[in-house]
Each structure stands twice: as structure tokens, then as C-alpha cells.
């Protein structure tokens, strides 16, 4: 490991950091990535042990506050009805995601123009389309072309996941209602792909795929980037980004694996720390020249935090479902995605359908819902529930609201003494009406499927998977943090490539769009290398 000046320093080795690293590697610049977590060992993922379900409440909890691995930092999300979910390690959130891989729609980039709320993005879907396609190829996405709810696009590299029992029951229900549905785009290998075996249906996909069929960037982009010469240093937690007398980023102060404070100089700094980690780092990089945080002359760093509030509804059918013996994702619906003002709200949501859960999760959640008696009746009731659940979740668009924000907690710190993020968030009125609509429609779907004992979780408490909007892109420095190709308005050698860039959230999982954006920013950087700081 050398401490020479890096041409490009990337902070974060997750979805976007990996994509940027891979894309920039062809320039042969000296590229270093600092990641506060480590390499994951698939042999240690929960699905390799008998206690695989129970680890959801322990070391593989989606919440960093519960999980409390050494690589985690605490987050004060007491003032939010949705708790932040993240993961630190090589692969970042792609280690712990469910690999649902939709793209934002063309209309998602023109919310102000089309629906009179929020703002338009400074770029459009057409600009990102080649990068979506490239990311699908590198990641390995399975799906089915021809979805009438989405514009024509290149065929996904692999065929879709099988419908299974759950997808069949749900598809029939949707057909009965006359509503749109389609097999989901999923970042799971359904055939042999680029040296990865096809999915063998471990089912416990979200907390790490022991088989490597689920695409996480530690097995997709990073091997390619490292072979191309990118240096990835793990267990290196960045404390602050430093600047020089010219107001340019000069490097970062970080703690290495031994906890020793070090400085890495850099010509260009790229932030890829997600919609909570990125504003946290920028705010922690305040200085005399940047008293309100680095790159924050707009005052928008940390503001406009958007989750996707999930309205989850589930019920129980007579037939046996796939339960947790297959990837949780199967089909989606865009029936209520595009705006219809007659619904009483603008924008919309996607339905993400779930195949079912395993016995332990069924027991614990049914107990919490009061469905599971104690005593002699327990066994019969449990057997009516177990293996019969179907899930319908509305992924609701969140509008950007300035009071929803990430700041620095005045007291809470991580194990290196770095101030932790604090979340202040409320669900907006438009989204609340949307969630009610989604719950009602989801109940109709489950009724059409013949389900009973309907349960609702709204919002899903540990549903802050999607962290967006807190360093938005735009052409106006007073109303955005970075420009239309990801460069900070204030600091011309500072770039952001993660979900912080989002101007609006859309109503679908963001990873595909995050990575397309990262590839786009990297491409812009390569095109402008000769005058990158102009």
C-alpha cells in the first residue's frame, strides 16, 4: 500500500463506488477506494447454517443499530417512523439487498413538468439508458422484455426467475382484477452467467447469497476493477475530506484497520457512501472555508431525504406457496405507477410481490400480529399459516421535502469518535394518501387470490433501505449540491455518485438507477478529463 497521491479517491465500495471504480479503471489513473467494511465471506452468510432465519434479529439484522458490527456506525433515527437500513463492507448495500432491480421510468425524471410538484432532474432516462444497459450486463440481470408498463428496451441478459407457486397464484389474481403485472427484473443469475452458477433457490437471499447467484458488487464489478488496477483498501473509515487553500479537495483523513489515523492525498475525490453516509461525511468535513459542511453553499446537503415508504400487506391462501424456498422477488405491478389525479395524490407506486417466509419468520411475525395462539391450538393454527403466506408491498414514491434531513447528532459518535448521523423524517401527505391507496389495492389483490387473515405493516419499520436525495443534482447551485454530471458546485474536484444525487425518488427500488447514474458520472469524467475542473 502506497501513500502516493491518488489520481482518484473513491469513498465507499458499494453499488455506486464499485461501478465508478470499474468505469474509471480504463483511464489507467491511480485509483484508490477506501471502504470502512471488509470483504464478506459467503461461507459465513446465514443461509449456510441452521440458525439462518434467527440471525435476522442479530448479526444480520438490516438495522446497523441492532447489528452493531465493528464496521457499522450508529444512526440516530429515533425521529423517523422508518429506520435506516444499510450495510458497510465491500459490496455495501448490495450484500444485504433483495436484488429487486427495476429502473426509474422516463416520467420519474420530469416530475415538475408532468405533475407540478418537486423538481425535474437535469438529465433524463434517455441519457442514462446506455448505462442502464451496461450495468445490467455487468451485474447480470434476469427479466423479460416486452413489459407494456415500460418503454421498449434491450432484453435483460438472462431469462426471468420462474413464477413458482406464489407467482402463479398472484398472477392469476392480477388477471382476475385486470391489473398490470410482469416478472420482476432481478439481479439474480437464472442461468450460468460470467462464471457464476445459476440460482439454486437458497431463498434466504437478502442477508447475503452464499452461492453467488445474487449480484453484489464484490463479485461483479470489484473483481474486474481490481484486475484493472484499482486499489481497494478495506477497514478504512474516512473521517473527513480535506481542502486546500484553493478550496479544492486535497484528500481525506481516515482510520486504517489498526485504528491509526492516516491521510490519503487525492487529485479527485468521489463520494459513494449512500444517502446518509455521504451527507454525514460532507457535514463532518466542515472547515473555516466551509463552515456549514463541505459542498454545502446551497444548504441542501442532508436535506430532501427520501425513503420509499413501504406499505406491506400480506395474507394466507389455501394453497401452499413457495415460502422462503426461492428468491423473495417474483413479479411486480406498475398498475398504479404513473400519476392519475383521480386517485387523490400525484405520482404513484409499484407493487413488489413476495413469495412467502420461512417457519421462524412466520412464527415470530404471526405472534406479533396476534394470529398465533398459545397452548393446544398453537400447532393447528401455525400449520394453516406456515407456507401459505403471500405478500404485496407498495413501494411508494416519496416527494423531496427540505425538513426531511440528515444532520450530525450532537452526542452520538461511532467507535472512532466521528459524529453519527441523525435522521429527522416524516411521511408527507401525498405519500400517506398513496400508502392508503396501496393498502386498499393490495387487499383487493389478496382477496382475488383467496387470501384471509390479512395483515398490514405500514410503513415497514426497518424499511429505510433506499436512501436518496440528500445531495441532489441540478443546474442551479442554489437549489442543488452537484451539477448535472455529479460534480460539486462548490468544490470542482469533488464528485458524488450514490443515491444522494436523486432529485425525486420514483416508486421503485433505486439500485439499478444508482449504478446507471454512477456509470454516467464516470463517463462524463472520462470525457472531460482534459478540463475536469473548469
Amino acid at each position, binding site marked *: 500500500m502506497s501513500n502516493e497521491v491518488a489520481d482518484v479517491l473513491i469513498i465507499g465500495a458499494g453499488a455506486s463506488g464499485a461501478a465508478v471504480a470499474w468505469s474509471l479503471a480504463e483511464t489507467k489513473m491511480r485509483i484508490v477506494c477506501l471502504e470502512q467494511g471488509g470483504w464478506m465471506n459467503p461461507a459465513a452468510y446465514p443461509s449456510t447454517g441452521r440458525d439462518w432465519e434467527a440471525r435476522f434479529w442479530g448479526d444480520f439484522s438490516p438495522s446497523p443499530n441492532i447489528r452493531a458490527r465493528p464496521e457499522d456506525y450508529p444512526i440516530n433515527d429515533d425521529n423517523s417512523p422508518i429506520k435506516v437500513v444499510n450495510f458497510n463492507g465491500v459490496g455495501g448495500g448490495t450484500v444485504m439487498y433483495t436484488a429487486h432491480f427495476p429502473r426509474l421510468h422516463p416520467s420519474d425524471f420530469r416530475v415538475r413538468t408532468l405533475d407540478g410538484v418537486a423538481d425535474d432532474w437535469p438529465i433524463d432516462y434517455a441519457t442514462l439508458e446506455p448505462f442502464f444497459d451496461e450495468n445490467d450486463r455487468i451485474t447480470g440481470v434476469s427479466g423479460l422484455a416486452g413489459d407494456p408498463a415500460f418503454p421498449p428496451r434491450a432484453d435483460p441478459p438472462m431469462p426471468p426467475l420462474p413464477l413458482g407457486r406464489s407467482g402463479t397464484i398472484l398472477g392469476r389474481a392480477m388477471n382476475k382484477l385486470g391489473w398490470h403485472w410482469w416478472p420482476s427484473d432481478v439481479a439474480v443469475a437464472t442461468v450460468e452467467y460470467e462464471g457464476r452458477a445459476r440460482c439454486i433457490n437458497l431463498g434466504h437471499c437478502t442477508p447475503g447469497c452464499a452461492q453467488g447467484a445474487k449480484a453484489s458488487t464484490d463479485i461483479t464489478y470489484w473483481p474486474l476493477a481490481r484486475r484493472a488496477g484499482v486499489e481497494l483498501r478495506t477497514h478504512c473509515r474516512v473521517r473527513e475530506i480535506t481542502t486546500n487553500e484553493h478550496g479544492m479537495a486535497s484528500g481525506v483523513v481516515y482510520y486504517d484497520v489498526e485504528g491509526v489515523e492516516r491521510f490519503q492525498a487525492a487529485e479527485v475525490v468521489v463520494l459513494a457512501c449512500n444517502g446518509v453516509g455521504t451527507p454525514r461525511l460532507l457535514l463532518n468535513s466542515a472547515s473555516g472555508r466551509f463552515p456549514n459542511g463541505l459542498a454545502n453553499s446551497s444548504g441542501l446537503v442532508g436535506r430532501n431525504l427520501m425513503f420509499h415508504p413501504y406499505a406491506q400487506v400480506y395474507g394466507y391462501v389455501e394453497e401452499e406457496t413457495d415460502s422462503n424456498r426461492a428468491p423473495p422477488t417474483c413479479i411486480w405491478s406498475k398498475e398504479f405507477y404513473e400519476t392519475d389525479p383521480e386517485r387523490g395524490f400525484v405520482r404513484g407506486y409499484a407493487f413488489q410481490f413476495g413469495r412467502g417466509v420461512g417457519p421462524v419468520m412466520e412464527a415470530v411475525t404471526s405472534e406479533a400480529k396476534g394470529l398465533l395462539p398459545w397452548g393446544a391450538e398453537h*400447532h393447528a393454527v401455525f400449520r394453516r399459516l406456515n407456507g401459505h403466506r403471500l405478500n404485496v408491498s407498495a413501494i411508494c414514491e416519496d416527494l423531496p421535502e427540505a425538513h426531511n434531513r440528515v444532520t450530525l447528532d450532537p452526542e452520538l459518535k461511532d467507535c472512532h469518535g466521528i459524529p453519527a448521523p441523525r435522521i429527522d423524517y416524516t411521511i408527507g401527505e401525498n405519500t400517506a394518501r398513496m400508502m392508503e391507496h396501496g393498502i386498499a389495492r393490495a387487499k383487493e389483490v389478496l382477496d382475488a387470490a383467496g387470501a384471509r387473515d390479512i395483515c398490514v405493516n405500514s410503513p415497514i419499520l426497518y424499511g429505510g433501505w433506499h436512501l436518496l436525495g440528500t445531495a441532489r443534482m441540478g443546474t442551479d447551485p442554489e437549489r442543488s449540491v452537484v451539477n448535472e454530471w455529479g460534480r460539486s458546485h462548490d468544490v470542482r474536484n469533488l464528485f458524488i455518485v450514490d443515491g444522494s444525487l436523486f432529485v425525486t425518488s420514483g416508486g421503485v427500488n433505486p439500485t439499478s438507477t444508482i449504478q446507471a447514474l454512477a456509470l454516467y458520472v464516470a463517463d462524463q469524467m472520462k470525457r472531460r478529463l482534459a478540463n475536469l475542473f473548469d
Partner: protein
Amino acid sequence: MSDANALTVRQREDLRALAATMIPASAEYGVPGADDPAIQAEILGCCGGREAPLVRTALDQLAALAGGSFASLDPVSREAVAMELRATGGAPAAALIRVVLQCYYRDERVVRSLGREPRPPFPQGHTLEPGDWSLLDAVRARAPSWRPSS
């Protein structure tokens, strides 16, 4: 101190009695109760570490509701006290109940009774039925529903 020693003798007795109240043995389904020795050993193994504070608090709550030893109560009283803990015990009770359930529902005998193999998902995986893609025909026939951006 081992995990098993994280609880006192009284707490372990109360835990076993509570588990039996929650999930009794069933000859009909051929399964042990949650007070089965092997399942109890699993539960005790989970009661240390990060779960310990909440579990101990819940068992103390149980004892307080029972006016002493929960395990010493008659069955009717046990059921009433158990229900009261369930209703009023908050986060500690929820944690204790979850530990009992997660250990019970990974016991080999219980898993087999559910028609499943008692093994981790990896490396064998499972088989997923292909399904019938002709179900999509009705959707394919629909007009495009996406909005252009301009």
C-alpha cells in the same frame, strides 16, 4: 460464564414452564413441546449475548406477575400470568417470546413435522416450479401504460 449460566435456576425453571405454556407437546402432530430438553438447551444458548438483558428482564417481569415462581403455579394460573406477560411485557417479553419461537421452529423434529428438511438452505437449495408464462398473455395485450417524459 457460559450462556447456560446467564440465567438463575429459578429463571430457567420459569422459562421452561413458560415455553411449555406457549407451545405444548402434541401427539397429533408428533412434536415435542417447547419445554423439551433439547429445545430448552437451544433456548438457553440463545439467552446469552445480545439477548441477555431483555430476556432476564422479561423473566423478572414474569416472576413479578406470578408473585414469585411462575413454574410453581397451577396450570390455570400459569396461563393467566403468561397471557398477562404477553400483553404487557413490551420489548423484553417480545424478545423472550421470539427466542422461544426461533429455537422451537428450527428443532429437527419440528421442522420435519412441517414437511421440510432440517438443513440450511445452502448448499442444496430448493426446486422452484417454472409456472405458466401464458398467464402473461392478458398483460401483453394491454396498451403501453408508461408516460413519456415530455
